[in-house]
């Protein structure tokens, strides 16, 4: 095209980024790569091809890791871990700082390599991915520097197995590696098999800037390698980002192993447009929501929920905007949408869209020859019941539905198994700030979308996973309490004596406590509770799975508790303490009778329980959120929200204090609980519900079951309406809880058979606060003028 013709057409023309330096790096390695273990590349072995999805060209041959490779990587990480953890925070900070500088100094090489390997537009890898990578290492250099001062009483989790996806290969490496290294962990990381190159470059350059060998190890390969890492006995923690399906398998595979786990999984994030929004800006936001990275973003705003009155106009604007998107060579600086990462993914997207019941719109923009490309797509006229409204497509496909009222918008938004992110568009600050806390999501953007920063936590609820990356909360994914807990001996109910004495007096049989009412167990069975001296203390009901169901329903119905003010919650918890203190003698006598403890010891337990109630009443209005220092004119609020409905198996050994220690932090933070009382000594729980009944606690906030922990564990942990399960039981149920929790990927906090001193500081503290809350990050950019 000559200049005169261009003058007429005013087309943009090609503007390709030079890929010479990236190709030179590949060539320097002969186009073949081994793993990066203990500071150097291993010899390339059994190979698989890594392709450029925009052209299908093979970029390099990578090595499929064997068991021996994984073993070597874990051994290297283990060997390095002690010294790395013992290094001063400052020393680790210097290394992380060097990594940040290294990324900046090689920014364009990383960006081009990423685009070649992944197919994302160079603008994104250059302006978003790589700068965020550098930012993440800078931020966590600071975390390492502050480690001794700010993370007292905690220690690194140990050796971490990290498995990351192909959509943001280098950025996900940064999200995983930076906090792990800052905390003093060492890493075995497996990049996705489609996109391993930037991780290998990173590891090579990290060694060059002096990262000690073994601190960061990279093994390449497919899901089988991931499985080896997940199953490896010498790995202390698994951090995974990827599909919900694989996340669920990892949850099952690690169940009962004692491995710590964080999962950042899929989503179907709502994008809510109210009729008072700046519609053009909301349309532009969608470009960043669903056509960013070809829609291959876990938190992509993929579910448009638009107010009926403006829906038609909004869709018109959107369709016009879609026609201006440029799709093509990802290395072209003038491209909005690059290539889908692999033909397998492309076919999946094509299949899902082909099956849609809605009205499918794709602009008539040209597709390049060859390569994996898919046009931006809008599907309107869908109802929540349509599968495409529920299932993650993971491509440049937006589905849309309408709503009438803010309440309906929230209901539609939350009508999902996922809970990763959400966007709200409205010029009304009252509306936006009212809706944000009501959304089931770990991240909410107000009048924006896909904003990320190292200082702001990112992560989901429901089947989008658990754990946060970024911010102070992200560090806790790589830290654990520094204490050596002794094994917890199983504590069984006192067996019936050989020749029981007949009871005198009026029969008094406690019931289950569900929804603020005392109910007989569904199964109609009770069992006897004997004192160590052979006296029949009482009968207790035996709860079954239907009682679990009823208790969870009652807890779910008491959702108003989450909205009660911290002040009100504090008052009620103080009132419980007051009423309990009033009955100290009675409670102490019961504890002594059940456990055989001395009267003094039993009274101490009651006194400590009262004190603990005071502690959590104190916290009820003091677990403040934060405003995070993100580089934006606006605020990123870190809001501590209740987890929801928490099921908890209470400690057997401290019948009153244990139950109170579990119940109080949960309800102080606004959760509703289903407590399974000490199996060995259940009567204190039955005594306590009388106290609860007289303390203005709304029905359903606390529900108490009695029965066999082992029998109830799978039902409570498997219940899809329960948001978290805790266990401090002396029964061996940690494994079954973690396994059953995989169903809806609820959070778990279990003891793995380790004891906790309920009388001491271990029985309370920030560990409980963290378990009882979810951090929701609400981004509110602002500005006028």
């Amino acid at each position: 095209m000559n200049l005169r013709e261009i003058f007429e057409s005013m087309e943009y023309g090609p503007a390709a980024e030079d890929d010479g330096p990236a190709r030179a790096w590949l060539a320097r390695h002969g186009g073949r790569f081994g793993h990066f273990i203990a500071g150097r590349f291993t010899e390339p072995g059994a190979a698989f091809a890594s392709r450029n999805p925009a052209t299908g060209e093979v970029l390099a041959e990578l090595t499929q890791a064997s068991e021996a490779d994984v073993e070597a990587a874990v051994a290297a990480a283990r060997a390095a871990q002690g010294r790395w953890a013992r290094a001063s925070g400052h020393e680790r900070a210097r290394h992380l700082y060097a990594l940040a500088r290294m990324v900046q100094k090689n920014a364009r090489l990383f960006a081009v390599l990423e685009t070649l390997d992944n197919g994302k537009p160079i603008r994104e890898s250059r302006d978003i991915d790589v700068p965020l990578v550098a930012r993440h290492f800078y931020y966590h250099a600071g975390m390492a520097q502050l480690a001794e001062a700010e993370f007292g009483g905690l220690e690194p989790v140990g050796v971490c197995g990290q498995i990351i996806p192909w959509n943001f290969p280098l950025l996900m490496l940064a999200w995983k590696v930076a906090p792990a290294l800052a905390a003093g962990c060492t890493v075995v990381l497996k990049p996705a098999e489609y996109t391993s190159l930037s991780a290998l470059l990173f590891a090579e350059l990290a060694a060059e800037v002096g990262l000690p060998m073994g601190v960061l190890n990279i093994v390449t390969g497919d899901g089988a390698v991931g499985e080896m890492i997940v199953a490896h006995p010498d790995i202390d923690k698994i951090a995974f980002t990827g599909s919900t399906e694989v996340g669920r398998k990892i949850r099952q595979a690690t169940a009962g192993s004692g491995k710590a786990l964080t999962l950042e999984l899929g989503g179907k994030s709502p994008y809510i447009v109210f009729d008072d929004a700046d519609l053009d800006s909301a349309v532009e936001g969608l470009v960043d929501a669903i056509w960013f990275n070809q829609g291959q973003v876990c938190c992509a705003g993929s579910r448009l929920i638009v107010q009926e009155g403006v829906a038609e106009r909004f869709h018109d604007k959107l369709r016009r905007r879609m026609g201006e998107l440029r799709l093509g060579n990802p290395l072209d600086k003038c491209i909005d949408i690059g290539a889908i990462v692999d033909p397998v993914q492309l076919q999946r997207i094509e299949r899902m869209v082909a099956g849609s019941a809605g009205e499918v719109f794709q602009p008539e923009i040209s597709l390049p020859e060859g390569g994996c490309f898919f046009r931006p797509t809008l599907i309107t006229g869908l109802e929540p019941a349509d599968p495409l409204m529920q299932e993650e497509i993971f491509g440049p496909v937006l589905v849309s539905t309408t709503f009438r009222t803010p309440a309906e918008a929230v209901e539609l938004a939350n009508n999902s198994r996922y809970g990763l992110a959400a966007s709200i568009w409205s010029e009304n600050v009252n509306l936006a700030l009212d809706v944000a806390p009501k959304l089931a999501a770990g991240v909410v953007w107000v009048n924006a979308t896909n904003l990320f920063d190292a200082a702001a936590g990112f992560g989901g609820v429901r089947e989008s996973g658990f754990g946060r990356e970024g911010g102070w909360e992200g560090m806790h994914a790589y830290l654990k309490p520094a204490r050596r807990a002794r094994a917890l001996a199983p504590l069984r109910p006192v067996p019936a004596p050989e020749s029981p004495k007949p009871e005198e007096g009026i029969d008094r049989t406690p019931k289950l406590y569900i929804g603020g009412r005392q109910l007989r167990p569904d199964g109609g069975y009770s069992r006897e509770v004997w004192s160590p001296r052979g006296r029949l203390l009482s009968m207790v009901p035996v709860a079954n799975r239907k009682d679990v169901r009823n208790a969870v329903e009652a807890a779910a119905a008491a959702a108003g508790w989450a909205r009660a003010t911290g002040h009100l919650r504090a008052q009620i918890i103080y009132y419980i303490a007051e009423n309990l203190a009033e009955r100290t003698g009675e409670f102490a006598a019961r504890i002594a009778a059940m456990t055989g403890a001395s009267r003094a010891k039993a009274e101490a337990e009651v006194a400590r329980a009262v004190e603990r109630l005071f502690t959590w009443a104190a916290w009820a209005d003091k677990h403040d959120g934060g405003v995070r220092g993100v580089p934006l004119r606006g605020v990123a609020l870190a809001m501590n929200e209740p987890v929801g409905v928490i099921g908890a198996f209470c400690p057997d050994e401290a019948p009153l204090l244990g139950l109170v220690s579990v119940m109080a932090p949960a309800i102080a933070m606004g959760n509703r609980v289903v407590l399974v009382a000490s199996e060995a000594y259940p009567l204190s729980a039955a005594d306590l519900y009388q106290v609860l009944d007289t303390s203005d606690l709304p029905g359903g906030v606390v529900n108490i079951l009695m029965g066999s922990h082992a029998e109830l564990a799978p039902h409570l942990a498997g219940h899809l309406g329960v948001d978290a399960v805790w266990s401090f039981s002396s029964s061996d149920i940690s494994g079954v809880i973690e396994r059953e929790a995989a169903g809806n990927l609820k959070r778990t906090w279990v003891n793995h058979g380790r004891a906790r001193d309920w009388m001491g500081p271990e029985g309370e503290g920030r560990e409980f606060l963290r378990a009882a809350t979810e951090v929701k990050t609400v981004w509110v950019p602002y500005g006028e003028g």
Partner: protein
Amino acid sequence: MATELPGRQATGAATDGGAGDGAGARLPQLHDARNPGTDLDLDWVMSAQANTSAIERRAATLPARRTVKKAHQAAWLLKAVTLIDLTTLSGDDTPGRVRRLCAKARRPVRDDLLEALGMGPVTVGAVCVYHEMVPVAVEALAGSGIPVAAVSTGFPAGLSPFRLRVAEIGESVAAGAREIDIVISRRHVLTGNWRALYDELREFRAACGEAHMKAILATGELGSLRNVARASLVAMMAGADFIKTSTGKEAVNATLPVSLVMLRAIRDYFERTGYRVGYKPAGGISKAKDALNYLALLREELGRRWMEPDLFRFGASSLLGDIERQLEHHVTGRYSAAWRHPMG
């Protein structure tokens, strides 16, 4: 672009001064029917929203999303030249100064550069002066087809007596100005008196007669982007042929965020009425790269049709010099110097 819109019949009139001899690369253009304006629709005006931070993000990322290189860049820069309202608005303007500017307007780029680029002659979009300089400019541009634009209505503050402001338009039109750059009463925007703004602009438009009215909103003084959006709509409802950002005399003049808001308002007006209104960012656009960013924004938001002098102008005085240097760099591969290009 939605095709079912009620597009108006083109009049078939050629570009000012005709497309033939001398116009060279100025391709024949069809003018759309002028925007006659509409009744004041306050519901529409008040429904306009502009989220500042979202708009700033869009404006900030656009230059990284769109770029033109090599021949495309040269062609775009040449296009930018044809879209310039070459402007002098100084208290010390003299006939000699204006004649020099007009000569530059006729021949904004050195012939040898145009030849090397394979292009015929080009001219700028218009010459923009104060009323007193209109006759000189009209004379100096005779036969070139380049229109003279006059700033008017008590430019830049717009606070002279209303009667005189209206009369000033008539005087400039009578003196041969074919475009009148009027300034709005900012106070009407700042007090939310949209009716007063509309009525004032209606009278200005009537006074313009056949001359085209370019409504200067002085966006740097309107307080918020929301006000910019609303004032843009009112100006178009009142019959503006162009909406223009600034006088060049405000503390803040044209910016990409302001432009985004005004372009979206223009699109909104077109989608609802079928009339295309032009856009003129003015003040502070002095680099070739800036011009490319504005053109990319224009193309993205309004499309190719708007990238012609009847629908887009740069109000600029020093932009041309930077573009000339870039064009010479494109031709020779060497960075250029200001003194190699004839001054205007």
